[in-house]
């Protein structure tokens, strides 16, 4: 079984799958995957696949970027609560101006490959 690491997480994204770690003791799902349960401290985990639909919990549109994002502003980034449990951060495509995307809006996952890395992004649904 793949280890519960960022390497495994990104390898799964490459296959178009969002995989988290599920605590075998209390059932809490962790995304990104982690080896020690946030909730109960247990260390027995199994992989679980998550659906890509969720709702925006917090959002911004960035105008002053990181150097790797230069030339791509403005772009939206959000904390998204997935329907089947945990939250995760990701770019949200198709949003140009602040206010077009609001808390509570529904989004759906997109797997974006750039160079040799696939990242989890979202699109307004």
């Amino acid at each position: 079984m793949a280890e519960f690491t960022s390497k495994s997480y990104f390898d799964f994204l490459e296959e178009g799958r969002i995989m988290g770690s599920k605590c075998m003791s209390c059932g809490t799902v962790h995304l990104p995957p982690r080896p020690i349960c946030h909730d109960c401290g247990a260390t027995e985990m199994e992989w679980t696949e998550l659906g890509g639909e969720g709702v925006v919990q917090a959002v911004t549109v960035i105008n002053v970027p990181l150097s790797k994002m230069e030339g791509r502003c403005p772009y939206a980034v959000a904390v998204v609560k997935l329907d089947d449990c945990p939250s995760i951060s990701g770019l949200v495509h198709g949003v140009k101006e602040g206010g077009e995307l609001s808390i509570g809006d529904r989004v759906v996952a997109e797997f974006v490959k750039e160079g040799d890395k696939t990242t989890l992004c979202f699109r307004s649904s």
Partner: protein
Amino acid sequence: MRGVGVRLSREIAIIGAGMTRFHHKLHADKTSRELFVKAALEARGSVDNGFELPEVEALFVGNFSSDAFEGQIHMAALAADWLGICPRAATRVEDACASSGVAMNVASMAIASGAYDIVMVGGVEKMRGLRTEEVTDTLAMAADAVYEVGAGFTFPGLFAALASAHFAKHGSNWEQLAAISIKNHHNGALNPKAHFQSEIMETARKLGERNDMTFEDELEFLRSPLNPVIAHPLRLFDCCPVSDGAAVLILAAGDVARKFTDTPVYIRGIGQASDTLALHDRVDLTTMNAAKIAAAQAYEIAWVKAKDIDVADVHDCFTIAELLATEDLGFFPKGEGGLAAENGRTALDGDVTVNPDGGLKAKGHPIGATGAAMAYEIFKQLRGEAGRHQVDDVEYGLTHNMGGSGATVSVQVYGR
């Protein structure tokens, strides 16, 4: 999970304090070691009955990233070296933007443990050697590099996202954030150590003249293109500047402090807590749990309540951070921090004065120096030496220093 508080088994006193002015140009010709020495010499000179540097038994230095900013690590030993106090133990503390606030706690515990009677604690950052994009990249290192920065978040972006969540849940708004910025610039204009020493209207007039624009009031200027959006809803005047500077305190055990001064300021309580680095791992995006826990610890040790605090320096790296801090520290109920600021309750003459020195917003934020500079301010306030931004009748002061987007928070409570 509950935090675990610290017991202080000896009294801890601040006997001297010094800081450089925080600025983006003034220190262009100086390195971190020189800024630290400058602040340390001012701290030495501030000790009422005289103080010699070799009396320092140990040194603690908060520093965020001289690694990235200057290509120099090992800042504590370097500072000890240039202060001429080798072979005294010198320890660097790095907890992102809370580095020197945490260093204050470590130094306090070093005295409380009985290991030392007199320690020097401070912080330093020299940030202006890098280009803006490089500074943005370096600041983002305080967030989760893989899962937040990797997802596209900048550091201002994380606080903008927190603001969006607070607006949605509690009905707060950007005008309330603007009130915080206006207040902090007003206070900064009264502080000779501040990076920005002008009221927002003064800046509006100056920038307006250059751009052929006039503004009726602060809000009209703050809504204009001259105050560009950095990360929606945060604009330039919601963000602290990038500054160089250093701040240094001299701490002594209560039983030796009176040898140095008749008016020491006592650290009555300390607290510190952690939280997940990534915002997406938190249950509630409208509160900083580490701040609540660190404050509860410090209040308990100091035997005070939030309502007893007269003056507080809180970590307003962004205006929304001050709003959150004033709620999480218990000054105002959750959801009412913005309204309180708008109604002047945190002003110099308010119920609890917040950031009388201008805060990070106007005073500046040389990251590693910030926690120590907060202690400098409260030391001055409690001794009635703050000058034009002195608050009346100060009995208890508080400092709140936050690392990253709330993954580390240190709190100190001070009294006379």
